[in-house]
């Protein structure tokens, strides 16, 4: 009995690793094949790059909302900080080209510091109160970027962001090259999240999500871990933002309005929060659907709004979300005691 189980398990592992290798290979060769075969290849690859950006943003938001159960709805603020840090470091301090490889982690760290600052007032706050603070923070950051003309160039945005250096390649802002650069960061982001989630730190986060009193009784410093959690989420949002800056080579505060944060939130929830694949799936699906609706032009966002509502009606736990977390709707409706605990959490 045990032996067969083991064999089954190892089969499953083999199967999964084969799948993993196949997926990786597909992701690596896809742009080359598309470039060779598809007529407007740069347009298609552009969509793929955008999906990768949103994979980073959605996954980083998922670290916060999905794993520690905090409710951040102002993720656009973190994206903005990362983006502006990268853009300003390269335009004003000459950290373009090869130095941008240093500027990317600096942007991440800088955003993580911002995440830490946001987490300070929010440590005491839960549920809705926390949500509104993240929202307020996001707007404050955007308005500062908009109005602090001396540093951020105000409503004009930051233009002419230098290209990144990559082994002497010339077209490093072409979709093709950026695709591979961002892909590397996506892998780093998902791998590190996976590793952290399956460690002492991740378990501490999930225990806070499930029941913070119980996790305190195990000696977990809840405030410290909530702050770590915000910092990790903000870090990857910042890295993603910095990458965006060298792709578009122009950024402005308009790119980070609240709706942008909601957009990322919708991806996380559509995909299924608290799972590793959920946000990836969400980013892919939302972007593909909005692309698909491109024929509908101005109705695109209208349809997108409808899609969000529809998902909440039909599958509130998200596409990848089995009913395996405290965040999953159905599980909670069944377990009424848990539900009141969640509600109290949001009220108290």
């Amino acid at each position, binding site marked *: 009995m045990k032996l067969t189980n083991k064999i089954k398990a190892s089969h499953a592992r083999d199967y999964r690793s084969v799948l993993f290798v196949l997926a990786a290979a597909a992701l690596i060769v896809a742009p080359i094949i598309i470039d060779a075969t598809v007529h407007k290849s740069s347009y298609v690859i552009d969509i793929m790059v955008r999906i990768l950006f949103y994979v980073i943003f959605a996954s980083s938001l998922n670290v916060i909302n999905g794993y520690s159960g905090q*409710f951040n709805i102002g993720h656009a603020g973190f994206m903005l900080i990362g983006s502006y840090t990268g853009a300003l470091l390269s335009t004003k301090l000459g950290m373009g080209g090869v130095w941008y490889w240093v500027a990317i982690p600096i942007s991440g760290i800088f955003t993580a510091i911002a995440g830490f600052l946001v987490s300070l*007032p929010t440590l*005491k*706050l839960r*549920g*809705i*109160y926390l*949500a*509104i*603070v993240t*929202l*307020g*923070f996001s*707007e*404050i950051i955007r*308005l*500062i970027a*908009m*109005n602090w003309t001396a540093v951020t160039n105000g409503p004009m945005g930051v233009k002419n962001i230098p290209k990144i250096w990559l082994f002497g390649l010339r077209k490093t802002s072409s979709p093709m090259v950026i695709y591979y650069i961002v892909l590397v960061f996506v892998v780093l982001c998902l791998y590190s999240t996976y590793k952290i989630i399956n460690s002492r730190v991740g378990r501490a986060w999930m225990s806070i999500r499930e029941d913070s009193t119980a996790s305190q009784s195990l000696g977990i410093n809840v405030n410290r871990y909530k702050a770590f959690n915000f910092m990790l989420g903000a870090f990857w949002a910042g890295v993603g933002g910095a990458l965006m800056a060298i792709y578009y080579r122009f950024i402005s505060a308009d790119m980070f*309005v*609240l*709706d942008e944060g*909601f957009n990322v*939130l*919708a991806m996380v*929830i559509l995909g299924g929060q608290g799972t590793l694949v959920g946000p990836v799936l969400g980013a892919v699906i939302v972007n593909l659907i909005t692309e698909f609706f491109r024929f509908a032009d*101005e*109705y695109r*966002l*209208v349809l*997108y*709004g*409808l*899609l*969000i*509502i529809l998902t*909440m*009606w039909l599958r*509130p736990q998200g596409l990848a979300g089995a009913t395996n977390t405290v*965040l999953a*709707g159905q599980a*909670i*409706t069944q377990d009424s005691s848990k*539900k009141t605990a*969640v*509600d109290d959490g*949001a*009220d*108290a």
Partner: protein
Amino acid sequence: MYVLQQLVNGICQGSIYALMAIGYALIFGVVGLVTFTYGEIIMLGAFSAFYYFIVFGDNLILSLLCGFVVAGLVGIVVHKVCYQRFLDAPRYISLIATIGMSMFIKNLAIIVFGSTMKGLPLFFEGQNLVIAERTIDGVRQQLSLTYLQVVVIVTVVVLSIALTLFLNKTRIGMRLRAVSQDRKAAALVGVNVKNTTLLGNCIGCGFGGIAGILLGLYYNSIIPTMGGVAGLKAFSAVVIGGLSNIAGAAIGGISIGIVENLGIAFIPNGSGYRDVYAFLFLIIALVIKPEGLFSRRTGTV
């Protein structure tokens, strides 16, 4: 004198926020869920008045009524789509649904109404009510209220009193309060919770619609995207006021208005940061008192 004038402006603007916040607090009270569609309700109220003026001419009071009705009707739709199914589900589900609804309404409005800014008719243009006047070094300084500001404040005060009377003196109002305090207990004593919730939501939305018109008149401009920041400020005011506390929400709204205008008065070149002051105020308020400044519930464990 300048500061005092800004204070007066702040109170006036704050009273619009207060009206929005009252509506929001009423909704939050009966439904028990946070909504992000409220900003769009405010916007629709403003646009309904815009079209009312075009079709029926400049009648302020009837236009306010029109805004109330339109916003209330949209409130029914929002209720059916975003709340009713999710009353017992985790909160974030209905929250996301309202975000979807907000995107839906806003972008539809951009298509239907056009994305450009529109003006509402000017009422009482250029007429001022001078409260105080003094001359320093030959420069005449005035502390004044425009007639429009007077109308705004009066409208808000009248509506607040009307709502208070309604909630405290009528049977329906008492049912609303009962549902707001404890849904289960209200159901036990025979209140039709479902309909009462719907009604409370409608009235709350109606207040939002009127506030939208006042906001449009005050700035003399309306635009389909005006709802975002407006809704957020209403939400902030309610959070400062302690969520379902209606009086607290009103105070929260007025204080946000004052903070904004004083921020502009004291900080040079600061008008671009107007909303920053409001949100900073919100965050500071929450840090000082995590359950809102006027929360009735105190730190029970």
